[in-house]
């Protein structure tokens, strides 16, 4: 299979369990080694990198959003947001950080620890954390899998606006048509193959696409 993800787009990879959507994301993000083939991100051949190169890649070109938020419980919201830069030893662009906090709506909760935040708030911190290093691409793995519908909407709109306003590239892996409906483009996988790859508008279109497969 060959697939491109142009920058500044929100792409959803959907498909039922076992369709290979997670595997595809793992290969794209350099989390898993393919038995054959190549993956490139922003001009770098991911599949050719060693552990050191992958670490560098993750520091500067990749962002992750997880289903279980995965914030560091002992750090405050703002510290969690800054963490990738600190790990990389990069200077912190305070203006950018504050803007992100504002965008995710957590300026007044910046000094709270994750346990003091709701699930939706935690995931919004995770979104800001993924954005802080201005990565080439953000991978979001079932980002709303652990949220109620109100919180889900908030997080999805946030991802949407990060693409629209910050020109961010985002790839979402999900089995939920509602989540996919926020994307510019939906890639449907089935049995490890691309079954559909279309620009979409509206949740119904996604449901139809998935049903067709």
């Amino acid at each position, binding site marked *: 299979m060959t697939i491109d993800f142009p920058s500044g787009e929100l792409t959803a990879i959907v498909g039922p369990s076992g369709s290979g959507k*997670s595997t595809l994301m*793992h290969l794209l*993000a350099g*989390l*898993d080694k393919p038995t054959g083939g190549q993956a490139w991100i922003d001009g770098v051949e991911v599949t050719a990198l060693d*552990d*050191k190169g992958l*670490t560098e890649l*993750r*520091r*500067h070109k*990749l*962002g*992750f959003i*997880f*289903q*279980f938020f*995965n914030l*560091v*419980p*002992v*750090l405050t919201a703002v510290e969690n947001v800054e*963490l*990738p830069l*600190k*790990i*990389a*030893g990069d200077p912190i662009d305070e203006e950018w950080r504050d803007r992100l906090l504002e965008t995710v709506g957590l300026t007044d909760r910046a000094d709270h620890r994750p346990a003091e935040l709701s699930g939706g708030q935690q995931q919004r911190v995770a979104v800001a*954390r993924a954005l802080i*290093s201005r990565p080439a691409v953000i991978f979001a*793995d079932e980002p709303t899998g652990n949220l109620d519908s109100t919180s889900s909407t908030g997080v999805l709109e946030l991802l949407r606006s990060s693409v629209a306003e910050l020109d961010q590239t985002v790839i979402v892996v999900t089995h939920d048509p509602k989540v996919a409906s926020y994307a510019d483009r939906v890639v449907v996988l089935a049995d490890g193959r691309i079954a559909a790859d279309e620009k979409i508008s509206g949740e119904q279109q996604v449901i139809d696409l998935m049903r067709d497969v």
Partner: protein
Amino acid sequence: MLALALRGLGARKLRSALTAFAILLGVAMVAGTFMLKGSLDTAFDDIFATANEGIDVTVQPKLAFDSGFDTPASGVSVPASLIKRIEAVDGVSKAAGDIGDDTSIAILDENGDRIGPAGGGPPQIANNALPEPFNPFTWTDGGAPTSDDEVAIDSITADEEGYEVGQTISISGREGVKEYTLSGIGRFGSGVPLGGASLAVFTTPEVQRITDMKGKYDSIDVEAAEGVSPEELRNRINDALPSKYEAQTGEEAAAEQSSDIKDGFGFLTTALLVFAGISVFVGAFLIFNTFSITVAQRTSEFGMLRTLGASSRQVLASVIVEALLLGVLASLLGIALGFGFVQLVTAAFKAIGFELPQSGVVVPTVAIVAPLIVGVVATLLSAVIPAIRATRVTPLEALRDTATADERTTRRRAWIARLLVLVGVVAIGYGLFGTASFGGALPLLGLGLILLFVGVAMLAGSLVSPLASLVGRPIEALRGVTGRLARENTLRNPSRTAVTSAALMIGVALVVFAAIFAKSANKSVADALDQTYVGDMAITNTDGFSPFSPSVGRAVAKLPGVETVSPIGGAGALVDGKTVIITGLDSNLTSVANLDWTDGDDATFENLRPDQAIAEEQWAADHGIAVGDQVEVTAQSGRKVTVEVAGTVRDEVQLLVPTLALPIDTVRAKFDSNVDFLDLVGFEADADVDQTEAAVKALVEKRFPQAQAQSQQELKDSQSDAINQLLAVIYVLLALSVIISLFGVVNTLVLTIYERTREIGMLRAIGASRSQIRRMVRYESLITAMIGAIIGAVIGIAVAVAAVEALSDEGLVLGIPVVGIVLVLILAGLAGILAGFWPARRASKIEVMEALQYE
């Protein structure tokens, strides 16, 4: 539930193995100690049974009291004329005088040095050649000495030194060095090693000459005539002789001699058991922590079991049974490892020249039962609180992710902890300041420390935060975000960090305590020597404490430049129903030593009559003795001597006047003590100090190699060497508990890393390198170790300062080894990093994928 517990152990192999190891080491030490004791006891029984073989009855002077570790044996003897009186008793077939003297001779090598380890070593015993059937030797080469120029040596020493019959051997006796021809080599009994001791056999007149026993024997060996039982003969002899002599059967004598020496070695067993106890105690912390963590991690499992209908008792049983299995398994392995411990101790003793007498490792029942009980009970006790916590898990909690600590229990725990600390401090304080005797203070001190350690470990949760900041902030400043995360990680579960570091705290506290105590003792001894000994040199036994021949001092006194040699003798005696050491002082003492008079002056001492004494002020006060009082002193021979107290002095360090000091001639004449413990030497005012010093040293070295002459400074150095050697042994023994506590750090880290798998994967996902993860874990380990080390150092310093204060009226002056304590802290930090090494590697192998795994 048994099956579940077994599965649990199997499933958590690594953790079970680490936990088992904590118990195993302590148990091995307990088992090894009992095996060592069993082996030594058997060997000593063997040795003394051999020595008394063929002796039906032995006749000795009846002693008023037994000499022991703190009361030196006096040279009480029997006269040669007693043999005739014994031979006259009906039923006696044969009687012979027996001498075995372990303080008089030194067997020399070709350089004129005592064979064996430098600076003392195992005893070298001078014996007279005994006629059959009393002779315990089997001559493997040559035979018994037949002239005063011949000597026979035991086969083990001969092998070690490569002796051959006919060669010349120099032996130094009380009157100086003499050359002997080796007449024979003999196997003693079955050839059991004698603990490094050497036996030299001389003719009777020769041994009497070199041990200053002319016309005297230590005991008389008796053979019974045909048809007379030893018991019968013993009774007949006792009836026939005056009551100052005592007859025993050979078996009774062997049992008594063996039990005496076994008692002497009792301190070794006790000391090893104390350190084994410390190791087990530290191990208990580790077990407690491991079970606490796993119970917390298994909350959902327990909740699930409850929803399936398991009662809380069944949950309790599953944890307890797991602990029981672990305890039994670890104890059994520990007992097996005990053999290794015996070999280790034996090898250590051999390395310093004291070959422990052994005829194979003996495993008494107690060496199996005691460690098994200790290991299992320690494991169960440590697991019981975590197990009870497991029963509190409700089915509902299984569904929630985090179990929250109950506010009330937390507060109750804090109160219990404070109570433990308080009782511990009171026990330590009472032990130090409230009890009169050292023996009474130690158990209280031990109990107090145990309570204090447990209490502090429980309270330390609240100390973790400030200490983690203290240690963690510099790391954070230097190493940035990994340091920050490491510090925060130690604060995640402060009580867990506290218990983990508490294990190390115990070891560090004891090390610091020992270091301060040793430094204080060194300082006090040095101060006391400076103040008391104002002469130029001091002569002691080469081992620093055993007695030596008065001939040494007499010979030194004749050297040009030497003005004064003041001998200090001593003997055990009975005063007021207690055994004490009395000293014998020469009237010339005041020219080479300062006496700190509280009643009287130097003239009092110089004019002391033979029936007068001076007393140590504190001792006199304790016994209600005042100047002018008549005091009855009983010698070991039973002779009663009454002396008048003419004056009192302060002698806190017990250098010259620990209790009573009598004129030395009185001690020599009436207390059967023909030895010196110390000779103080003063030079003439116009003597060349270096030259005279060299001359004294040369004389002592050449003619009396069992003694040594030292300058003031050398004497101080050798005293502190002795203390430092003891300190080194204590460090080695404490090292085991420190190693166990490091396993605790490893174990906790491994378990918490397991808990944080997903988080670590996430850190990798957002750009953390493997080495950053490794660093984070190592810093966490370092911080945990340092928390324990700092709290431990504080406790160690506090208790040591209190202990020194309590002993200040015994002359102890506080000395704090600042460099040493800093070094301990640095080493603890390094140990922490070392302990974090392997968990850090494990953590760094966690892949990003693991952060993405769905539940």
